[in-house]
C-alpha cells in the first residue's frame, strides 16, 4: 500500500487528496496541518469579517471530507524537515511520517519587513489565515481606528471586510497606485475612487518610518494614530522544507508540468510554487486559488501513478470591492483597446496577434471568453475581433469553431 504525505492543509492539499483518490482508493494519506482547521476557503476570510460567510460555510469541503477520503490529518503539527534520503517527514514533536511520495502544499507566508518600533505595537496582525480573521474580529470594535499597510489584494479585501466593524479604516501604501500587481494607473484610480466613496481613507506614496505604540510616523512627517495595525505587504512562498531534498527552487518551488520537483517523489503545489505564465512565457509565482486546486489535483494523480499535467497557468483575479467587480487576467503588454466611463473600465492588451491580458472593472459579463482566448492563444485574426473587443461573446467566433465548442454538428 502506497503512503502519501501532504504538508499543508489548504486548497492545494484538498486538490491533492482528491487527485490521489481519483487513482488510488486505498493508499494511506497523511495530511500535516499546522492550522487546527479543516480545509477552508482562504480568500473568504474577508467575507467572514463582512458577515457574508460563517465558520460552517467557509469550509471548502463538507465536514466529513477527510473521513470520506480516508485521510489521517495531524492537526496542530508542523513539519520541520523532509528527510528525502529516508523518505520521511520529520514533525515538530520529534516524530516522523514515512512516505513514498510527498507533496509540499505549504502555501505562502505573510512577509513583514523590519520597521523601527514595530514591536512596540500591541495590536498588530497579518491577514492570510482564518485565525488572523478571528483575532481581528475580537480586536476591532466600532470605535477602532484601523491602519492597514499595503494596498494589494489582501490589504484591500481586509479594508472592505473591516469597514463595517471599525470606526475608520486607513490604507497606507508605498506605491501611489493601489493593486499595483494587477492594475495599471487609470484602472487603479477607478477602484480607489470607489473605495473612497465607501469610506476607506488612503495614504498613498508614503511609507512608515517608525512606529510608536499606537502611532505611525510617516516618511512625509505626518503622524497617524491607530488602535489596530494590519500588515498586508505581500506573501512569500514557504519552501524552506525543500532544503536538503535536492529539489530546485526559484522564488517558489520549481516543478515540471506533473508538479514533481527535481527530487523524484517530492511534489509541490499551490502558492509555494512558481510556474510559467502562459501569457508572457515568464516564470512567476501565481498564488491564486484556481491554480492551487489544479496543481494539487495534478500532483495527487501523478503521486498515485496516474497521469495529469498542469499547464497553461495564467495569473488572474476576480474580486468585488464594495460591489464593484474587478477582473484581471494575463499580462499587460502590447497595444491596448480601452473603454471607460466614470464607474467602469475595460482595457484589453494585444500583442503578436494574440490577446495577452485584460483589466475589466464593472461590466464583467462573460469575461471568461477573453480568459480562454489568452489561455488557448487563439489568434485574434481567427475571430471577429472588432465585435469581440466590444462584447465578450462566442458569436464572434467562426461557425466551425463555435459549433465544435458547443458540440454541434460542423
Amino acid at each position, binding site marked *: 500500500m502506497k503512503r502519501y504525505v501532504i504538508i499543508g492543509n489548504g486548497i492545494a492539499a484538498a486538490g491533492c487528496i482528491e487527485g490521489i483518490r481519483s487513482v488510488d482508493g486505498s493508499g494511506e494519506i497523511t495530511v500535516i496541518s499546522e492550522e487546527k482547521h479543516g480545509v477552508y476557503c482562504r480568500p473568504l476570510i474577508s467575507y467572514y469579517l463582512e458577515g457574508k460567510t460563517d465558520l460552517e460555510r467557509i469550509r471548502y469541503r463538507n465536514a466529513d471530507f477527510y473521513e470520506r477520503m480516508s485521510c489521517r490529518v495531524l492537526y496542530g503539527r508542523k513539519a520541520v524537515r523532509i528527510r528525502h534520503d529516508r523518505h520521511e517527514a520529520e514533525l515538530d514533536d520529534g516524530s516522523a511520517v514515512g512516505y513514498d511520495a510527498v507533496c509540499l502544499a505549504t502555501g505562502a507566508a505573510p512577509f513583514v519587513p523590519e520597521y523601527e518600533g514595530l514591536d512596540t505595537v500591541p495590536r498588530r496582525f497579518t491577514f492570510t489565515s482564518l485565525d488572523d480573521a478571528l483575532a481581528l474580529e475580537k480586536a476591532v470594535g466600532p470605535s477602532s481606528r484601523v491602519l492597514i499597510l499595503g494596498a494589494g489584494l489582501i490589504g484591500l479585501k481586509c479594508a472592505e471586510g473591516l469597514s463595517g466593524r471599525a470606526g475608520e479604516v486607513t490604507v497606507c501604501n508605498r506605491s501611489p497606485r493601489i493593486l499595483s500587481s494587477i492594475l495599471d494607473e487609470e484602472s487603479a484610480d477607478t477602484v480607489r475612487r470607489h473605495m473612497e466613496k465607501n469610506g476607506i481613507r488612503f495614504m498613498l506614496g508614503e511609507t512608515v518610518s517608525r512606529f510608536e505604540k499606537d502611532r505611525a510616523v510617516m516618511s512625509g512627517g505626518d503622524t497617524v494614530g491607530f488602535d489596530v495595525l494590519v500588515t498586508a505587504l505581500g506573501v512569500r512562498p514557504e519552501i524552506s522544507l525543500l532544503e536538503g531534498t535536492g529539489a530546485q527552487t526559484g522564488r517558489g518551488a520549481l516543478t515540471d508540468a506533473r508538479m514533481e520537483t527535481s527530487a523524484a517523489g517530492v511534489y509541490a503545489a499551490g502558492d509555494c510554487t512558481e510556474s510559467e505564465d502562459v501569457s508572457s512565457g515568464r516564470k512567476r509565482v501565481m498564488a491564486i486559488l484556481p491554480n492551487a*486546486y489544479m496543481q494539487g489535483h495534478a500532483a495527487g494523480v501523478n503521486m498515485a501513478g496516474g497521469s495529469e499535467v498542469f499547464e497553461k497557468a495564467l495569473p488572474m483575479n476576480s474580486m468585488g470591492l464594495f460591489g464593484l467587480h474587478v477582473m484581471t487576467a494575463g499580462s499587460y503588454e502590447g497595444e491596448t483597446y480601452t473603454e471607460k466611463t466614470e464607474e467602469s473600465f475595460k482595457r484589453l492588451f494585444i500583442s503578436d496577434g494574440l490577446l495577452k491580458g485584460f483589466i475589466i472593472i464593472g461590466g464583467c459579463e462573460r469575461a471568461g471568453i477573453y480568459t480562454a482566448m489568452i489561455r488557448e492563444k487563439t489568434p485574434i485574426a481567427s475571430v471577429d475581433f472588432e465585435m469581440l473587443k466590444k462584447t465578450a461573446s462566442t458569436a464572434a467566433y467562426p461557425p466551425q469553431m463555435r459549433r465544435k465548442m458547443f458540440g454541434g454538428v460542423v
Partner: protein
Amino acid sequence: MKRIYVNEEWCLGCHLCEYNCAFANSGLSDMALALKGKPIFPRIRVEDGEKISYAVSCRHCTDPICVKSCIAGALSKDGDTVRIDGNRCVGCFTCVLVCPYGALAPGENGVMRKCELCLDNACGEPACVKGCPNRAIVYEQRGEA
C-alpha cells in the same frame, strides 16, 4: 451524457427560453406573477450575432474549470451535472472569469445562478428545451463523452 444543444440555424432569437428558464426557476406557478415587470435572471442567454443567434447555457463540462476555480467551494460536480450551492457562493465572479462559454451570470442578490437542467424545479425537464417554439434547443446525447 445528455446535454442541451442549440441548432443555431433554427434559433429565431426570440429569447423565449430565457423567460421559460426564469419562470421554471422562480418557484412560482403563475408566469405573469413570476416575471411581469421584474428584472429576470435566466440561466440561459441568447447570444445575438449579426447573422446568427443561439442560446448558451452551462455545458456541464466533463472537467469543469469553474468547479476547480471556485474560491468558495460552492460549485461541484454531482454525477454529470455541475451544481451550485447558492448558500456558499459569495459572488466573487471567479467562475465568470474562467468559463470559456460565458455560461454563468449572477442572479438576484449577486449570487451566481447556473443551469442545473431543471433537475430540482417543478419543470422536471429543461424548460428551455420544452418551450422552444422552433425546437432549436434540444436535450440529447451526442457523439462526445
